[in-house]
């Protein structure tokens, strides 16, 4: 296989004019070659939104609690916006779980479950938008993500629906059928691809524990841990999706996430200010 005559600027005919290529470092490559893949690794990825924080509000832990949890949190968010730039996202919560339970009982595959679950996150994003509208909240659909810089500069509080767009293409997990890419994962992936300043998971516990503190009163609080150590520790339960930990291992930009308690006033503001509150999981 030889590339022979240059057809015109940048275009290359293969022998016998069998294929027309574009000259590039990947021309005629399968993209599976290991050395080629390694050559694409670089540490200086561009920074897309480096001054913006990602704040993800838990579904069950925050939204499903209604006004009791949200009213003070919204107040705190509005106040914090004066000093910080951030994008808000929100999980699905108990209706998301109900959707999975029902869907599994009916025999839906993983991709089918992922395709119906996002509507629940959308509902939560709509509610969050309505709570924040008078304070410059704006709901930003997936297709308008390129508008975020305008909204941020204008002083808005952008709200995104973080169920990642895997839909029918979500990957079946090893056991069971729950889609592995859910709202925590989507929120975290946004903070990674946009190299955001922080990724804060706002939940209803002080952070990470060695087991689910709601079920095991002897679970130990873990203030800071590397993702490798956490996977070695292999806690029976986690406050964030396991896919987040998998991705954190190979992340380039957002190599640290924080889990904080949104039920304790002031915690979010302190986390935004860079204080060491809650639990940190780092690469």
């Amino acid at each position, binding site marked *: 296989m030889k590339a022979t005559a240059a057809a015109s600027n940048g275009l290359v005919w293969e022998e016998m004019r*069998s294929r027309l290529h574009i000259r590039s470092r990947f021309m005629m490559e399968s993209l*599976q070659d290991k050395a080629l893949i390694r050559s694409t690794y670089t540490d200086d990825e561009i920074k897309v939104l480096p001054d913006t924080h990602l704040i993800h509000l838990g579904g069950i832990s925050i939204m499903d609690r209604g006004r009791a949890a949200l009213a003070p949190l919204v107040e705190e968010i509005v106040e914090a916006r004066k000093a910080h730039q951030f994008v808000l996202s929100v999980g699905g919560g108990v209706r998301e779980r109900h959707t999975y339970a029902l869907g599994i009982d009916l025999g839906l595959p993983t991709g089918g479950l992922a395709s119906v679950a996002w509507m629940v996150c959308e509902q939560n994003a709509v509610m969050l938008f309505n709570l924040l509208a008078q304070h410059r909240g704006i709901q930003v659909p997936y297709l308008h993500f390129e508008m975020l810089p305008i909204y941020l500069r204008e002083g808005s509080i952008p709200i995104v629906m973080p169920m990642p767009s895997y839909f029918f293409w979500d990957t079946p997990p090893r056991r069971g059928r729950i889609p592995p890419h859910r709202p925590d994962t989507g929120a975290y*992936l946004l903070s990674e691809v946009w190299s955001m300043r922080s990724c804060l998971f706002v939940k209803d516990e002080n952070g990470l524990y060695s087991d689910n503190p709601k079920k095991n009163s002897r679970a130990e609080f873990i203030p800071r841990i590397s993702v490798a150590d956490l996977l070695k520790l292999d806690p029976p*339960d986690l406050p964030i999706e396991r896919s987040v930990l*998998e991705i954190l291992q190979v992340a380039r930009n957002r190599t640290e996430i924080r889990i904080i308690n949104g039920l304790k006033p002031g915690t979010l503001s302190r986390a935004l200010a860079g204080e060491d509150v809650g639990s940190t999981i780092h690469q």
Partner: protein
Amino acid sequence: MKPGKVESSYSGQTLNERDVIHFDDTGDEIEILPSVHVIKIGGQSIMDRGKAAVYPLIEEIVANKPRHKMILGTGGGTRSRHVYSIAMDLGMPTGVIARLGSLVSHQNAKILHMLLCKHGGVFLLRDNFEHLALYLNAGCIPIIEGMPPYEIYERPARGGRIPESRTDTGIYLLGEVLGARSVIFVKDEDGLFAEDPKKNPRAEFIPKISVAELLERDLNDLMVERKVIELMQTARHVRQIQLVNGLKAGNLSRALDGEHVGTIIHAD
């Protein structure tokens, strides 16, 4: 107000427990479209060859229409490679690169659609997934872009920046979620080789191999995306795939009839 109260035995469950089955997931999974074949038309291997490769293949696809229900998906090819190389040079993260790649397989799907339109080709938007049965029952051939819709939610690639889930992966997952009868990858080689046969003409041909063996051999180059092999390990429906040479007339028809004409990769 107390947290989440649609009362059930699952209250307090996080869905993040260690490797457990949630919600009594012991029953069978439905097959959404068990009679359909999902066929991937290679980008670099078929589309970029233009008329010489694409026209005879289309003829063969149309000839099979009375006997087989088919969904076609497209790869990217040389334009994907070019935009990846530019984006890489500019320091784009994997998620942005995946978004760029998606647009090229979209182009190829539109091209294929125009060629197949008079034979009942319909362009299938991902949002119109629910129209699949309508199209197939009307005797149409749905054509979809191969890239999965992950785009900026694509995971950072391990050890590189080329998105790991590309068009082979998208088409494979489409077949898997549908519970398809078969997933066939139409490329320009007879099947899987131990090395890229275009670089080493004496590369060993592998007619049939298990996923476990393939993972153990850990080949340096591979004709199908590694992600597909990884996903096959947990697949519920599509436990084998076939790679066939679309430049040889009759191969696709024989593969649709269940014959072994290229390389079969199987998970069991």
